[in-house]
């Protein structure tokens, strides 16, 4: 298929058009506004059959999505930052009810202070609500991840909601070449949603979202945990099939010059693209630098991550959000914890960077690799590109 020029937002909206969901309920917020704006135009132009519900807030948007998905529909939405935060109350309800809602999230800082630019605080704030989380390096991956998210979320082994994320402005508003597949091929790939139950099926009445106290709440949550575990092999299977059909295979992560690396970074999102340029430069000078690009943050595939990183002597984890826990960002604490059982543990340090859209440059990433060559002298948690 031809490569066309699209912004990340246009690419995600295009994926939604091809998916042609039964219901989209959304409320606009920068920098995700365009996704729902473009999609609303598709609805107005009759290009999709979707019931579009323009609600009065993100809380209502996700609530309407829960209702529509409980009725058995294929349901999508999109949001960012405070909008996602306003949904937090409903996110664990969607996963507990096992509703495979797919949401495009355009990663943006959380207020305050008020800021509209990229970091991962919003998505990371929603990491423990039982939602699958996919990160995208560029507009192509954003498009591909939205399509795959449908298959992953609706897989009978999974039945969990999923977020496909991109980096605010950097990808959402940046135009790049994107290969858009034929509508028919996409529709064959995603198939139909086959919901096990529907609250609208009067012949087979069910109750969803009932009170669930000491008697069963724990068992239901245990099932969410199990479904998240089951999601990893499904994500691999779906990514392989995607590769077979469309030529771009996806896994749980991407290893970039990692296998023989002596120093490596772990990162996610658009920064990984900039890091590839740095790694190429270092490799051309004979420095064995590498990267683990995490695509799937939920589930966190600890075993596979450890396998990929076990032979690298010195690691830096780049976090585009802070946990404010006085011991490192969310990606760092996951990766470090995963490495605990390893006999020969790598040296591992953390960099919090890029909060509120602070640019991360080629030079910044070079400085991280330079630090890794004297890793013993570095603090466990470092702040990259901040004035202090």
């Amino acid at each position, binding site marked *: 298929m031809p490569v066309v*020029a699209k912004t990340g937002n246009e690419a995600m909206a295009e994926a939604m058009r091809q998916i042609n969901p039964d219901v989209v309920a959304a409320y606009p917020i*920068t920098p995700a506004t365009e996704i729902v704006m473009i999609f609303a135009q598709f609805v107005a132009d009759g290009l999709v059959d979707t019931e579009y519900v323009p609600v009065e807030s993100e809380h209502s948007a996700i609530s309407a999505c829960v209702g529509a998905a409980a009725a058995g529909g294929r349901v999508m939405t999109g949001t960012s930052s405070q909008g996602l935060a306003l949904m937090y109350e409903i996110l664990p309800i969607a996963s507990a009810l096992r509703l495979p809602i797919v949401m495009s999230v355009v990663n943006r800082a959380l207020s305050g202070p008020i800021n509209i630019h990229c970091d991962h605080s919003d998505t990371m704030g929603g990491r423990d609500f039982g939602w699958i989380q996919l990160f995208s390096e560029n507009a192509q991956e954003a498009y591909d991840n939205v399509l795959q998210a449908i298959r992953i979320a609706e897989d009978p082994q999974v039945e969990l909601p999923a977020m496909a994320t991109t980096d605010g*402005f950097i990808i959402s508003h*940046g*135009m790049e070449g994107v290969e858009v597949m034929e509508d028919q091929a996409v529709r064959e790939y995603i198939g139909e949603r086959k919901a096990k139950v529907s609250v609208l099926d009067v012949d087979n009445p069910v109750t969803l979202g009932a009170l669930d106290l000491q008697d069963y709440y724990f068992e239901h949550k245990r099932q969410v945990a199990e479904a998240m575990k089951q999601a990893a092999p499904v994500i691999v299977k779906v990514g392989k099939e995607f590769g077979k059909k469309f030529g771009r295979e996806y896994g749980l992560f991407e290893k970039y010059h990692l296998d023989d690396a002596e120093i490596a970074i772990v990162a996610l999102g*658009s920064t990984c693209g900039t890091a*590839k340029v740095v790694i190429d*430069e270092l490799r051309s000078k004979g420095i064995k630098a590498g990267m683990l690009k995490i695509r799937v943050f939920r589930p966190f595939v600890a075993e596979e991550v450890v396998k990929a990183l076990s032979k690298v002597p010195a690691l830096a984890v780049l976090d585009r959000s802070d946990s404010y826990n006085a011991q490192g960002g969310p990606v760092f604490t996951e990766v470090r914890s995963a490495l605990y059982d390893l006999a020969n543990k790598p040296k591992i340090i953390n960099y919090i960077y890029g909060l509120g859209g602070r640019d991360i440059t080629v030079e910044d990433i070079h400085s991280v690799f330079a630090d890794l060559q004297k890793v013993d002298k570095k603090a466990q948690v470092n702040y990259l590109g901040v004035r202090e």
Partner: protein
Amino acid sequence: MDNIIEIRWHGRGGQGAKTAALLFGDAALALGKHIQAFPEYGPERMGAPVASFNRLSDKPITLHCSIHNPSIVLVLDPTLMATVDVTAGLPDDGLLIVNTSLAAKEIRGQLKLKGKKVFAVDASKISIETIGRDIPNTPMLGALIKVSNLLRFEDVIGDLENKLKKKFAHKPEVIKGNLEAVKRAYQEVAGE
């Protein structure tokens, strides 16, 4: 990184600096280049100074950081030069293309520039005469193609014509004016 061309557009909100970058990126993509086009991230306000950017390469581009050292800078509104350092980060062999009724030599004097190559084109006058309104971004594309030598002019015009025909199917008079604007700027842009 040496094989990536980086471009910065300066304009005022509403003048089409973002659209110019998108149009140029789109045209370059259609001619087989790998591209990026992105605005200065943030809220835009009518009349406020804004910037937008392009990257062009024969190879896939993975960089996702800001552009600090463009090799080409375009200025859509000459009054910006009084308040914005339009040549910031532009290397000594960089190119500066300004929409102005002045000559390139006069712009150099105004900016007290040493080194770099300065080009002038009266894109506002061209757009008023061809499109009927002062929207200098389209003619600036013609000037950029001439000065940068990155794309074949005939190819760009052909691609642009196809796209405009699709976009303005119900307003064919717009198509002729825009194409004429690009052609005139291509011919009229002048260095020192």
